[in-house]
């Protein structure tokens, strides 16, 4: 592990469109076989980052190595080693699912068997249906199938489960776990934090083009963000909230003080979503107060 070079290395990456900095000095590595999630609000710079890694966009500054090559100059052999599931697909889709998969398989030197991929995405019964006649969720499964048909070493998944029903989402997670056990490195962007928690080994959070936190799912936000919260309504009807490492002790204290059950008692352990929202809002609040103080000074 210590000697193998990272599958993805991003160092001080920036991307600007005119005066707008979409990505601002981002650095992270992804180890071979790791699943890494990029999280962040819409327009935060996730897609710009992932499209630079996929070779679709040129960076403004910084260094990027993907499977040991610079995506801006990488050739067809490099493309044969990656798989891409783009964020949106709107192909007119006059080909059937089977025809499309067979055709894309023929583009790769070492593809997976088409029947296997069809089964893995659960589209065997739709094999002979033209893609434009499929539902949105089914078309998304075709996208996923086309992303993995070439047996990629590195798979990019840009919001892969948009339009999936819960069952399809769980089946998709199983598929990704199978790819992980095969050693596939995966870079995932998602708005679904359960998905990030289920699948990824580590995650980075991007807000306003900056990487504001990175770590294992258990580390994000730091220990302080994980302190449980006790919430109740006091005798005057006012809602009270206290963060404490010893919630049971606090509740016992409350019961003793009140001489009975506290009203509307809740003990909350922050979920990944709570921690994520805390980080994103904290960052937004930070930048707003900056602006405010500037205005005061001016």
């Amino acid at each position, binding site marked *: 592990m210590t000697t193998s070079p990272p599958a993805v290395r991003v160092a001080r990456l920036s991307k600007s469109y005119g005066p707008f900095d979409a990505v601002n000095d981002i650095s992270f590595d992804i180890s071979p076989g790791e699943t890494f999630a990029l999280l962040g609000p819409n327009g935060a710079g996730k897609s710009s980052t992932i499209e630079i890694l996929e070779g679709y966009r040129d960076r403004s500054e910084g260094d990027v190595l993907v499977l040991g090559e610079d995506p801006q100059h990488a050739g067809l052999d490099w*493309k044969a080693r990656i798989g891409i599931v783009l964020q949106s697909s*709107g192909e007119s889709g*006059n080909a059937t699912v089977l025809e499309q998969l067979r055709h894309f398989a023929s583009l790769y030197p070492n593809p997976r068997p088409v029947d296997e991929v069809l089964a893995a995405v659960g589209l065997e019964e739709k094999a002979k249906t033209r893609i434009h006649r499929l539902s949105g969720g089914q078309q998304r499964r075709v996208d996923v199938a086309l992303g*993995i048909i070439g047996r990629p070493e590195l798979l990019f998944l840009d919001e892969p489960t948009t339009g999936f029903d819960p069952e399809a989402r769980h089946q998709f997670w199983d598929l990704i776990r199978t790819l992980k056990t095969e050693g596939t490195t995966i870079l995932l962007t998602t708005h679904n934090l359960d998905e990030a928690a289920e699948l990824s080994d580590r995650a980075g959070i991007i807000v306003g083009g900056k990487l504001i936190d990175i770590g294992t799912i258990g580390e994000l936000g730091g220990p302080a963000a994980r302190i449980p919260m006790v919430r109740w309504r006091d005798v005057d009807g006012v809602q009270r909230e206290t963060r404490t490492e010893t919630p049971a002790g606090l509740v016992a204290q409350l019961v003793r003080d009140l001489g009975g059950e506290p009203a509307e008692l809740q003990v909350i352990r922050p979920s990944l979503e709570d921690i994520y929202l805390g980080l994103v809002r904290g960052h937004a609040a930070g930048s707003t107060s900056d602006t405010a103080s500037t205005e005061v000074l001016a």
Partner: protein
Amino acid sequence: MSATLTPQPAPQSMPQPAGHRTARHGLFSLGLTRIGFEIKLYFRSTDTVFFTFLFPFIMLGIFTAAFSAQGNIGTNPDGSGGISVGAYYLPGMLAAGMLLSGLQNLAIDIAGEKGDGTLKRLGGTPLSPLSYFIGKIGQVLVTGILQAVLLLIVARFAFDIALPTEPEKWLTFVWVFLLGVITCAFLGIALSALPRSGRSASAVVIPIVLVLQFISGVYLQFNALPEWMQNVASLFPLKWMAQGMRAVFLPDNFAAQEQNGAWELGLVAIALLIWLVVGLVGSRLTFRWIRKDA
């Protein structure tokens, strides 16, 4: 999505044997695979089949029905030497078919593929743009030849139009057709960069194609057009394709009606070769899998 994928047969760190790719996945063999796929999709697109493939048949039918009552075209004072309206319009319809199958078809097709994400997806695969072009040019050649052959069969058997019997006329037909249709295909690839979206592609391309057909002797008799319009048309390839086709299918005494009183096949070749170079350079300069940093 039951997760049953066969594991990677070889460890990923194992280097690919040299030549592995070129052996099975040459640019050319992938291009041939693309041709088959492209033709299948061409005939599944109702718009394309109607406005590109069948359009010359419909126009030939309309012209024949509309103007046949006015008698033959080009008759001598003694009533000899004329040809039917259908026979007169056949070369123009063949030239229009080349323009539609090549330029209109590819310009709209590729602009649409750019707009709907097909090109972006292909750009993420190990498909070379060269193989993609082979697929497109091959699709144009196969559908264009099929269209021309069917048009000739319909002309001969449905409209009773006499076709030339001299081998040298057919030789002229072959080179004018191939040079014209390939030129139009590359011009179509180049023109596909013009529409800003897939949806606007038809609105941008069809007026260009339509105007060219009106000024180049496809719908209107070329010798009846004012000279300035003939001169403008001479700047574009369709006029030369139509002239080449008239040289094949019209009786030799019709050459006197051409702008310079002759078929000028040498000029036809030169004009089409110049436009072929324009198309090749334009395609090379403008084609991108995606509009980077748009």
